[in-house]
């Protein structure tokens, strides 16, 4: 059997912190990052979001970019998080280093800013025309770090980041890459905020994952990346944890809604445990997708019930901290899963008071210390795309 894939670095930026340390401190202190939109210029000031309070100008300065750069906000956040991951793993970047990024709307922030200009035939900001397409954002991050080899983008809506991690792990196992940076990035845009708002699944208060009275999600932004390395490349490098399982399935039910019994989620979790070669009792913590929409949380709970019966392991959704960061969510939550293993702690599901009538499941609501060897992380998206990942303690 193949050994689980080693993770040697991680980096993150989200509404609860600009690096791994800051994110961890917010998680253990129960400090959320939900606020009113300030950097995103929108009329929907009443919709709470998980916004990173750093301007594009400041991010560009931190990254030492030239004045006429063509980084979109997703590229800026992405490069910021990649930089931390590379530093931590002391990664050697060469022809055998790959980059796989998940993003849902890529550089939509630039497109919505310049769309009218382009329509009028003004070419002044034409360097942002290709920015609309997700591959552009990925490529510009790759170029910034001198990655010239395998570069690709996955766009499976809210499971993009998780699928990017899965592809990276598979390519390492298959011997196609020696080192790969995997994860996802998405920034707040008017396009997504209004899109989810038109679907009437945004909450006007702080989201309440898995609560009977939940009334929608808060949108967030962020980026997170992991460095995966082949066994023979490790030498004496510290291993933060391992990707032991992954599963991808399609709900094949509806373009945006989950099936009532959470079929896609069920299949994805089942496949993940099969690749990891572990049974459901071995899972110590589930970082749930838990968006706090009526539909997702009840479908996910149904799927959990089908896998774990009555004895669901400790679970929580960290989306009340960060908001739902779409394509980046699976990557952010991969970092949280690894932190959970590193510190042997389950992070709290904020804003919970009443269990859902349908399942009766109660998430972990206070920081909880316990032995943790295996964490299951769920990411589900539009188009029925469901992905589950299992992170394990090194040596387990």
């Amino acid at each position, binding site marked *: 059997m193949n050994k689980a894939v080693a993770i040697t670095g991680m980096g993150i930026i989200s509404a609860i912190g600009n690096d791994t340390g800051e994110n961890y401190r917010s998680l253990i202190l129960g400090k959320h990052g939900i606020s009113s939109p300030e950097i995103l210029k*929108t*009329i*929907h000031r009443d919709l709470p979001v998980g916004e990173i309070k750093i301007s594009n100008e400041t991010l560009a300065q931190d990254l030492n970019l030239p004045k006429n750069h063509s980084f979109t906000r997703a590229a800026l956040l992405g490069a910021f998080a990649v930089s931390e991951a590379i530093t931590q793993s002391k990664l050697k970047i060469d022809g055998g280093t790959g980059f796989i990024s998940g993003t*849902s709307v890529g550089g939509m922030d630039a*497109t*919505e800013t310049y*769309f*009218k200009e*382009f*329509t009028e*035939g*003004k*070419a002044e900001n*034409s360097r942002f*025309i*290709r920015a*609309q*397409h*997700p*591959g*552009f954002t990925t*490529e510009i991050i790759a170029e910034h770090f001198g*990655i*010239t*080899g*395998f*570069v*690709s*983008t*996955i*766009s*499976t*809506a809210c499971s993009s980041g998780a699928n990017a991690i899965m*592809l990276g792990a*598979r*390519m390492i196992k*298959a011997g*196609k890459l020696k080192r790969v940076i995997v994860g996802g990035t998405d920034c707040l845009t*008017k*396009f997504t905020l*209004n*899109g989810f*708002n*038109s*679907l009437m699944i945004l909450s006007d208060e702080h989201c309440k994952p898995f609560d009977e009275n939940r009334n929608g999600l808060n949108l967030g932004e962020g980026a997170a990346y992991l460095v995966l390395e082949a066994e023979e490349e490790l030498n004496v490098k510290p291993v933060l944890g391992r990707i032991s399982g992954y599963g*991808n*399935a*399609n*709900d*094949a*039910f*509806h*373009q945006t809604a989950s099936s009532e019994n959470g*079929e*896609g989620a069920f299949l994805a979790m089942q496949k993940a445990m099969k690749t990891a070669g572990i049974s459901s009792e071995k899972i110590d913590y589930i970082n749930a997708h838990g968006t706090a929409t009526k539909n997702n949380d009840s479908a996910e709970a149904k799927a959990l019930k089908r896998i774990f019966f009555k004895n669901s392991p400790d679970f929580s959704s960290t989306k009340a901290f960060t908001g739902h960061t779409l394509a980046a969510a699976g990557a952010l939550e991969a970092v949280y899963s690894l932190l959970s293993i590193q510190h042997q702690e389950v992070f709290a599901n904020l804003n919970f008071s009443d269990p859902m009538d349908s399942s009766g499941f109660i998430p972990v609501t206070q920081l909880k210390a316990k032995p943790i060897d295996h964490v299951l992380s769920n990411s589900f*998206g*539009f*188009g*029925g*795309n469901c992905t589950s990942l299992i992170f394990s303690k090194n040596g387990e």
Partner: protein
Amino acid sequence: MENKIYINGIGSISAQPGDVISWEAARLYHENIFPAISPNYKEFIKPMALRRMSQAIKMGITSAKIALNEAEIEIPEAIITGTGEGCKQDTEKFLENLLDQDEKLLTPTSFIQSTHNTIGGQIALNLGCKNYNVTYTQNSVSLETAFLDAQMQFSENPEINSVLVGGVDEISEKITSFRKLDGQLKPDPIKNTDLLKEDSTGTITSEGAHFFALSKEKKQNTYAEFQSVFMKNSIQPEKINDEIEAFLKINKLDLAAVDTVILGINGDNRYDHYYKNPQEKLFKNTTQLAYKHLIGDFDTASGYAVYLAANILKSGEIPEILKLNKLECSVPKTILIYNQYLGRDHSLILLSAV
């Protein structure tokens, strides 16, 4: 031991009619943006559903179904889609409404269908296929990443027998026309079949969908064997020959074994020199073909090259209109496809006759 992978079904929708081998004349276009030729979508999609679908979704579902029907596969064990620019028509619609209505009174339909994975998701929904499903969107290697994933699916899991792989891109009124502003399109309209004679910047563009039913089993109507795919984000023009030779070596092939190359030449004089090196050195004595003068250039245009290669390998015939040089190749056995866009996202695909 690696399994062999065969192409047993192909669905192709492009700006040219099907059945390329028996063609007499190519369809001519005099604009730099031109649409695909629509098949009768009603044969494949229910009228109610069809009304709400953008071109990309219609082309995707239809070509996927054609490929699966031909290969006699009901439910593939994976659906892997590549799209460089995704569902532009719905994106454009939602974005324009948002900007024109100042974020007020928006309806969700076009937003729902704007995500890049809509095509792959809709194919799954249409087939009732709950298996592995991913969408890649990396400019001109979107379809190539999908092929790479498919190849890994077969080698990882011995239980996998069939995988559906495809590439789809649509044109939209505004977003596609922005390409005139940043030099991606030629400044003046040309006739598509004159593309390869052009000495100017930019190219011409269109849309299309190409789905391939891949299988471990060789059948009587198998098109070709899918051997390998390679992609690299950036390459120095003078290093391209080294990359091609390294790729052939990994696949245990001599240069001489490649009897036909299909090149992604798109008439952009700023980047076509990438093809010059292999044309003048490695493949001096090899039959050289091009195709973008027929269907334009778009991120998943290489799907048309795979479709051509598979048909050439099956029929043993090469249509005159594709030929770049006078070298005859009696019976094509091994075809190499090389593509790039704007000097980035390079890919090599290798197919062979069965």
